[in-house]
């Protein structure tokens, strides 16, 4: 950059941009330590009560008679978290298997419908989630299937399979097919070649795809909202409901814990990626 004033201006703009992205997160974290139970926008004093109450560690905040400090979400939140984790685990497994199989098929075999498949697999990612959500809702209701954790898992897999497919396909493109040909020439069956030659090379891509699927599944709101029925709800739907009903101070503590978890997962993802390039 030849112009130092221009560069300084650009730097100021960019730093303001990152402040814009991160300031809201710090606002939540700040408020989560505010002890004011009536109006959480007015700072009273520093407290960890919302956290201890949420995690079921404190008597004071689980005392129903003390309305002001009572944390009502603990049980519901933990149930929602459990549902989210169950859904994410199953979704990740299913979509990773299907997505990987598809990526291998499209990269290693030449057949007439290959182009059609390649284009078609983009659609679930591009389709607005509300359209997919209501489509699945009508479908499940029409065939008489009860809305449950199973319908949530199916809903997530419909679009996450495509995400895994994209990631694994990208890894696939960087591999040398000669290794597999050598394996076949040396008498290995397709299955042995797949297991001993192809899958080990694909592992970082598969892991990356699985991680992405897990993270998106944990965060999905819209599709879950439509196909979850009245029983099981996931964490994002639970928080959405809390926001709609009117927020209670403990939501800041929940939100902070979620932000913390996402930082850990993002760091893990970055670490995995840096290992992959080594």
């Amino acid at each position: 950059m030849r112009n130092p004033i221009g560069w300084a201006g650009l730097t100021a703009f960019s730093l303001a941009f990152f402040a814009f992205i991160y300031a809201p997160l710090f606002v939540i974290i700040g408020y989560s330590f505010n002890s004011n139970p009536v109006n959480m926008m007015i700072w009273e004093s520093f407290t960890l009560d919302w956290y201890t109450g949420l995690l079921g560690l404190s008597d004071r905040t689980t005392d129903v008679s003390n309305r002001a400090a009572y944390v009502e979400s603990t049980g519901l939140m933990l149930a929602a978290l459990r549902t989210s984790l169950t859904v994410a685990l199953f979704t990740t497994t299913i979509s990773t298997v299907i997505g990987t199989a598809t990526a291998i098929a499209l990269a290693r075999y030449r057949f007439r419908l290959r182009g059609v498949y390649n284009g078609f697999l983009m659609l679930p990612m591009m389709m607005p989630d509300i359209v997919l959500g209501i489509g699945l809702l009508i479908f499940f209701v029409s065939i008489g299937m009860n809305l449950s954790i199973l319908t949530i898992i199916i809903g997530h897999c419909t679009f996450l399979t495509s995400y895994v497919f994209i990631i694994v396909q990208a890894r696939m493109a960087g591999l040398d097919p000669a290794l597999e040909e050598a394996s076949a020439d040396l008498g290995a069956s397709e299955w042995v070649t797949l297991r001993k030659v192809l899958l080990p090379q694909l592992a970082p891509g598969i892991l990356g795809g699985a991680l992405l699927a897990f993270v998106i599944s944990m965060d999905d709101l819209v599709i879950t909202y439509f196909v979850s029925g009245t029983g099981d709800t996931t964490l994002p739907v639970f928080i959405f409901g809390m926001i709609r009903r009117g927020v209670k101070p403990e939501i800041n503590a929940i939100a902070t814990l979620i932000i913390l978890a996402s930082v850990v997962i993002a760091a893990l993802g970055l670490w995995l990626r840096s290992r992959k390039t080594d």
Partner: protein
Amino acid sequence: MANRRQSVALGILLAPVTLFLGVFFLLPLGIIALFSVLTPGLYGGVEWAFYHWNYGRIFGWADGIIEIYEPIYLQILLRSLSFAALTVILTLILCYPVAFWVSRLSERWRLVFMFLITLPFFSSLIVRLYAWLLILKPSGLLNAALLALGIVDVPLEILYTPTAVVLGMVYVMVPFMFLPLYSAVDNLDRSQIEASLDLGANRVQTFVKVVLPQTLPGIMGGAVIVFIPSVGNFVVPDVLGGAKGLMIGNLVEQQFLSSRNWPFGSALSMIIMAVVLTVLLISVTRARKAGGHA
């Protein structure tokens, strides 16, 4: 396919995705299309008779007896399109300079800021929107700051307005615009920029004639990725928008979860789908054309 065992392997690999997406993706979309031309039942559900007034209500050929044409539906559709377009423009204005800045940093700082821009991908959408609720409230942080600084005398009413909706969408979509832009800016051929400047073009000319055409694919990619989820968005207007910030996604949600008029909701969804497919088709043909010239 010469080898029979190979075609068996191919079949095994492709069967799961074909079955799964056939049943749980194509079929539901087909059902939406079907429901959009069926008669709404009296107490929710449908009657199996052809009915075109669902679209008539939206586009103006309603029968005027049971189904009444309300221009509000078209207005909400246009509003959704303009909010989405505005989101694209604003994220582009925000991200372009920053992408440029990040690409000029040293290796270490570039990694740091790339990490910072991808981090929101991993953090919860609903939590990030909730933060804006705290900031924009009449008693929220923004108003507290403005009042304290004496910039305003009465709290600004930002929450539950179109401004809040667009702001929220820009905030949520920023990373999706940034990443394609960054890869375009990072791949800029710098020698061309220097050549342009050396040959006497000024900065503006260089930007318009050299930088902009080279980064256009990134701009188009980002625009599509931001526009599509914005136009059908219902979470952001639900949390931050009031009646004036209502978008077509909210209409769809109402038809399914409160009005229980599924055929009408399906017709509205078909419109969202049509918009999305049109945008995709245009971008694909454009990209193909551009690829053909190169």
